[in-house]
């Protein structure tokens, strides 16, 4: 946005957010590919075999076990990678905490009900709704994703460095890690579906993967309260 030039585009995502999101996708893909054969070997054991058999040419042992062992190492390396990209992202986000749009607008039950009604109206009745940059579902999604990611990190740390923790801690960590997997198994398809398979949301995808910017008309149509806030600031 420029002050005197007429606003045609709005910055939806900063460079730092685009960078983090891109790497998050890489690491999530690694987590999913290497985690599935561990949590559901009956269906995804072939991933372990795919990893194990080629390596078995040079590393002796049972190919399936080798595949799972390699999957576990890739899983851990992905966790290290994600931690490394999380550090600058979190620091930048914390510096910009006042600009966050994911805080609840209000705390009353009626406000919550209104948020739910907006979700139903938009996603089930395809109606125009008065929401800000993020609706109730998107805000809840973001908070839940952050909390789950944190829980996955802590439980994964306990499982990796289990020698430093008691056996009961292993069991809890294992269960929390499994539960976290299911939270993401539910949340990620919803996220990807709403972003990629709803044609109306295409500008949002372009903003996240390319320019970071959204056409002002799109903001006006899909995020009227945010539009008002933006234009109000300028007026």
């Amino acid at each position, binding site marked *: 946005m420029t002050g005197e030039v007429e606003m045609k585009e709005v910055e939806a995502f900063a460079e730092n957010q685009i960078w983090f999101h891109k790497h998050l996708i890489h690491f999530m893909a690694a987590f999913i590919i290497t985690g599935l054969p561990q949590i559901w070997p009956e269906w995804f054991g072939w991933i372990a075999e795919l990893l194990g058999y080629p390596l078995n040419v040079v590393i002796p042992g049972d190919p399936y*076990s080798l595949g799972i062992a390699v999957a576990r190492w890739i899983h851990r390396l992905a966790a290290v990678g994600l931690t490394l990209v999380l550090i600058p992202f979190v620091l930048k986000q914390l510096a910009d905490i006042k600009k966050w749009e994911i805080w609840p607008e209000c705390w009353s039950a009626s406000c919550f009900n209104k948020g739910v009604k907006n979700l139903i109206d938009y996603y089930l009745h395809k109606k125009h709704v008065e929401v800000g940059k993020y609706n109730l579902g998107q805000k809840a999604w973001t908070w839940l994703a952050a909390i789950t990611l944190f829980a996955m990190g802590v439980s994964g740390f306990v499982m990796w460095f289990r020698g430093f923790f008691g*056996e009961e801690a292993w069991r809890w960590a294992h269960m929390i890690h*499994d539960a976290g*997997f299911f939270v993401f198994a539910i949340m990620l398809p919803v996220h990807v*579906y709403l972003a990629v398979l709803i044609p109306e949301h295409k500008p949002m995808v372009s903003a996240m993967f390319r320019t970071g910017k959204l056409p002002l008309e799109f903001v006006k149509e899909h995020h009227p309260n945010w539009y008002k806030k933006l234009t109000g600031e300028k007026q």
Partner: protein
Amino acid sequence: MAAGEKVITVNVDKCIGCRACQVACHVWNNTPAIYTGFSPNFTNPEDLTPHTWMIMEYKEIPGDPVAWAFKKRQCMHCSNAPCAHACPVGAIEVHPNGAVVINDEKCIGCRYCIEACPYDVPRFDPIKNKVYKCTFCIDRIQNGLEPACVAACPTGTLQFGDYDELVGKYKSEGYEVYGDKVNDYVGHTHYVYVTKRWKGKLKEYFDLPADPRRPVIEFNKNVVRPIGWGLTGLTLAALAAHFVFWRAKRVEEKKEKKEGGKQ
């Protein structure tokens, strides 16, 4: 029990705590002896290790005079072995004869079996990155021999044979028996403890849990995972339905726009 199931019975009334079984276990399995320290209760080593798959535990039973309880401790070889269910690479096999055996070539040292075992038996070797425990001497059994500990027992405390026959014999003789019916988590065990001398006190004196289980593991297996998979499936189905619905709405809107334009 299923045909072919074997059992090792431990008649604690006859045990003299000589540790011949412990030595035989080391010798047959070629596991090294380890340095041990002073143990105030004579149990030595004080706990199972990756190279000590069974130990004799010594416990004083209060009374006048004080009595000694000698407990042979090792893997219980559960029929519904939780360790085998927990293993992500299928390295733990429950043989038809009841032996629960870790295939160390397959073991990746994840220690999920240790998490699951309610008897606190498998031990992790950090140097080899593998987990070890008693094998029920599967190699001897499959070659028609008794397990090494049974063969070494000088008092007849340990007996090896067909499950129903041997356990049935002790039951008919009025012994208290631990292991033939434990719970849904472990099933029944292929090490069975019997006593007449301490009837009614077997579990208490020999630290044999009445209901061995790992509640967190069970909660994960019976609640978290089924609900997790169920909700994941429902979500995917709901998204597919929403996709069809949204597409239909779009087609409808386009049609309305077209008709509106014509008018």
